């Protein structure tokens, strides 16, 4: 079975390459579907495959850049990417990320901030989960009320409507984001991207997990535009991250390329699935992914108070993340398959 292992030329370790492809497929599906890089899912997977930690982050970012490019190309074809919004957000994200990274280095010099950062991350994830499910609950309530009144709910109706308040802020210059169908102050996306970038810099994450819901709930993007636009941003920030990490010698390109083979397939599945799963379906699945991420963070926090259970907690955290990846990617794959079958069947029926 030697042929199933490949020697990584830089890290000098032999890796089970089918594992890299499977991981790539899973993360590709989820990334293409939710519009995020998914570093929190890849790192435990690479760890299990025996990848040295020194190369895990850089390799992950390099593959993420390629994967996001594939997904962005596909979302772009569907008209799901608002490039104007993407470029504005990109500037704010880079500035915010650098500010956050500098701030965390300053805090580290003052003392150990790791636990505080993890708690902050956890609070943020709890807030996002609450936001997503509260939105779903409110929309269902509206739907029930509409049915009771003998009406049909507007397809574009949402549960949480914070974006309407934010869009009322008329500080010039005003911009029209045609693809997203939004007219707002330019300061709204700039400030949102700066704050989400700053949070990502402090937490040491890519930021897709925070940016995607912000695009929906604060800026007011339709779900699929938020997914496509966020992926466009992940693509550029991923290339930037790949450049910096590779320059520091922390990228194993061979592993990234093998993962990309799987991710190319996964990203297509995930992106095409957004065509068949409704916006609120994406939001609910996203909420479940956030819960999985939060559980893994809690499991990493427990050994701080009970060091004897560290091994058990680390293993459980890894299993949890991989289980979330497997279940969600399977769900998205099945839905995509069903939607594609339906579409092909209706096309065949339409042809005389």
């Amino acid at each position: 079975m030697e042929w199933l292992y490949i020697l990584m030329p830089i890290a000098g370790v032999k890796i089970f390459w089918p594992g890299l492809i499977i991981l790539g497929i899973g993360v590709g599906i989820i990334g293409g579907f939710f519009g995020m890089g998914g570093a929190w899912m890849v790192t435990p997977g690479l760890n299990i495959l025996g990848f040295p930690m020194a190369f895990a982050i850089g390799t992950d970012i390099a593959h993420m850049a390629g994967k996001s490019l594939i997904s962005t190309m596909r979302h772009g074809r569907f008209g799901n990417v608002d490039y104007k919004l993407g470029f504005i957000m990109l500037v704010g994200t880079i500035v915010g990320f650098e500010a956050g990274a500098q701030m965390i280095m300053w805090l580290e010099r003052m003392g150990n901030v790791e636990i505080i950062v993890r708690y902050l991350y956890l609070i943020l994830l709890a807030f996002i989960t609450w936001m997503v499910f509260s939105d779903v609950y409110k929309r269902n309530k509206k739907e029930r009320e509409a049915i009771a009144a003998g009406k049909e709910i507007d397809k574009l109706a949402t549960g949480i409507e914070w974006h309407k308040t934010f869009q009322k802020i008329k500080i010039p210059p005003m911009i029209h984001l045609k693809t997203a169908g939004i007219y707002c102050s330019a300061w709204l996306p700039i400030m949102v991207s700066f704050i989400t970038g700053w949070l990502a810099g402090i937490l040491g994450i890519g930021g897709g997990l925070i940016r995607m819901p912000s695009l929906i709930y604060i800026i007011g993007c339709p779900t699929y535009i938020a997914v496509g636009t966020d992926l466009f941003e992940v693509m550029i920030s991923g290339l930037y991250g790949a450049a910096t990490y590779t320059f520091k010698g922390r990228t194993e390109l061979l592993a990234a390329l093998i993962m990309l083979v799987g991710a190319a397939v996964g990203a297509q599945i995930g992106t095409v699935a957004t065509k068949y799963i409704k916006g609120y379906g994406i939001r609910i699945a996203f909420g479940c992914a956030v819960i999985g991420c939060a559980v893994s963070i809690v499991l990493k926090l427990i050994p701080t108070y009970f060091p004897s259970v560290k091994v058990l907690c680390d293993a459980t955290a890894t299993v949890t993340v991989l289980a979330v990846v497997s279940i969600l990617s399977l769900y998205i794959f099945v839905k995509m398959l069903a939607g594609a079958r339906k579409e092909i069947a209706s096309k065949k029926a339409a042809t005389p």
Partner: protein
Amino acid sequence: MITLFGKIINLGILAFFLVPHIALAAGGGKDAPIVIVADTRHITGILAWWANLYNESHLYFALLTVAIIPTIGVIFGLIADVIMKKIGIDLRSRELAEH
């Protein structure tokens, strides 16, 4: 004005790719304290060349990586386009289902 603004943004982004060491995130401006050297004794061919490039210059290694990743991404994306068209999935439009 908008064109000028666009050019400034593009130049700013380009600077990060051409001069990656100015990036302060991901470890700060200084070099990381650990130096990793690739062991090229047991590898041959393109892998050996790749590992040697890593040992000789991280800059060229980084530039090549940043060029390879999107190129491969575009190739995979285009191949998938062809396959999906053959299957019969419409890649050009989607119905506006929900917000």
